[in-house]
């Protein structure tokens, strides 16, 4: 467990998740542990939305956290939020995976847990979820990414802007358009 992350660290606010580079390495480990605990499922959800493959999503998620762990001492808080930094790494890892596989990010398949959950629910709920999936498929891949970052990963508009490399207002505008288009697509499918 040399240099590993403790398991008893509680999740704190994102602004204090990562220590500065000048602090002791142990401080950086503790801060990274907080970031990991608070972001593990969110990163997986975002990556799974991009790569649309459970095994690939797990591999990319692990790769993203490995890269972030190696670079944890180089994180500069003045350049953005730690979650935005982490999701930027995860985005690059996911896009590398897509690039290597020669596949594009298509939200066409149903996640396994979603299918199994739909079997126990009412027909109306199942249809609504199917409409959501259809609506996501109708979106542009970049719009689907914005939806995933906002509603699967829970990032703020400022964090989304940092991740995708646009201005905050531009990110908000793009997100609004994506939500509008998704609603239209979902309502059209119902």
């Amino acid at each position, binding site marked *: *467990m*040399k*240099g*590993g*992350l*403790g*398991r008893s660290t509680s999740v704190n606010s994102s602004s204090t998740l990562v220590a500065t580079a000048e602090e002791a390495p142990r401080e950086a*480990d503790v801060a990274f*542990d907080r970031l*990991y605990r608070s972001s*593990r*499922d969110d990163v*997986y*959800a975002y990556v*799974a*939305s*991009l790569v649309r493959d*459970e095994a690939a*999503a*797990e591999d990319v*998620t*692990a790769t993203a*956290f*490995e890269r972030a*762990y*190696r670079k944890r*001492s*180089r994180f500069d808080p003045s350049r953005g939020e730690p979650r935005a930094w982490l999701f930027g790494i995860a985005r*690059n890892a996911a*896009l*590398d995976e*897509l*690039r290597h596989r020669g596949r*594009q*990010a298509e939200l066409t398949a149903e*996640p396994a*847990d*979603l299918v199994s959950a739909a079997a126990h629910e009412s027909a*109306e709920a199942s*249809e*609504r*979820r199917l*409409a*959501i*999936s259809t609506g996501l498929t109708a979106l542009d*891949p*970049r719009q689907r*990414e914005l*939806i995933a970052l906002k*509603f*699967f990963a829970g990032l703020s508009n400022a964090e989304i802007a940092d991740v995708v490399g646009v201005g905050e207002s531009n990110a908000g505008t793009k997100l609004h358009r994506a*939500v509008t288009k*998704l*609603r239209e697509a*979902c*309502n059209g499918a*119902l």
Partner: protein
Amino acid sequence: MEPFKDDAEMIAELRTVRPLPSPVFAADLDERAAAGFPPRSLPDASPHEQLGAWLRALPPRRWLLPAGVTALGAIAIATVVVAVSEPKNDSASIAQLSGTDRSAPPPKAERYDAHAGSAKAHPSHAAGAGTGVDSSGVQFETAVPTTTGHASAPGEALSSSASSAAASGPSRPAETGPFATDTAHRNIERSAEMVLGAEPAEVGDDAAKVFDAVHASDGIVLRSSVSGGAAGDAGATFELLIPSAKLGDALAAFSAIAEVRSRHEATDDITAPTVRLDEHLRDSRATIDGLLVQLAGADTDSERAEVEAELSAERRHAASLRSQATKLDRRANLSRVSLRIETGAGWTSDGADSGWGIGEALGDAGHILAIAAAVTIVGLAIVGPLALIALLAWLANRAWVRHRRERALS
């Protein structure tokens, strides 16, 4: 089926389809996080990819420190190599400059430096020659009419004697030029200066050893002065004439008497003035022979008196030339040596054999730092462009990867 009433309802429904990691994967990732995310094996990766992954996994401090140490080591080694090889280059350049004495190689540890000029002037004084007489051809020609008083201008004296020689018919010798290049035998004037360091109590004994060494070399002590006293006051000075053939042995004997603080030797090629003097002497003899013939054929007293006057003047001229030739031979055969015995810590500032002190240490340190700086600049001149190319390649690769990533999303 009713459509979504608003965005909030749709977003709530959207969050229900959020992908979740499997419990097995989540537990495995937690374990790896607790272990500090150890590098995973890449069974399907090529060796190149595995090496790249290993390099990327290295923290910067793990390779920056060895790289810095390697660079400093390279600079240190290059500095040592340059500093060690530099004296060889100096020796080579000195050897190239010392080509004046071609036929007679300089004795061991002979030095050619600014002090050679002062050393060259000494033999003329020792030999008792006219003041200002030197070994160079121009100065020597100037000295001839001064000593003979034969003409007001030196060039006139030489040209007149040369023309008279040509008129009398002796064969003209080969052109000697300023260095007498056509002469097989060369006359070399040698001189030396040496400073010995001794304890005040040993000055007397060392002076006696100097006399013994001079006598052993069949040399002549022109002047000597031995004084006692405390360190710095006690000392001895010697002006010596040593047979040139034994100069090396004599200097070696002097060096064995006490600590050598400085030693300078110089040579001067006096072949040209010697050869020219011989030519003038032959011309003068031919002129005398011609005047004797004229004297025998003189019919009147006035004609006879005029020829006798010319003959007398020419004989004085020949005598002067013979005296000059004797002096030149003396300069070639006897070497002037200035020897001084010092006491105390009076280091000479110009001696290569002098000791090593704080001043020399600072000088050496500055020299080494200058070499290190030069090596660093040369290294940067080599590494700089390569680093710039690597930086541009890295930036281009980064932009290309970013473009490929965005294309993958599109």
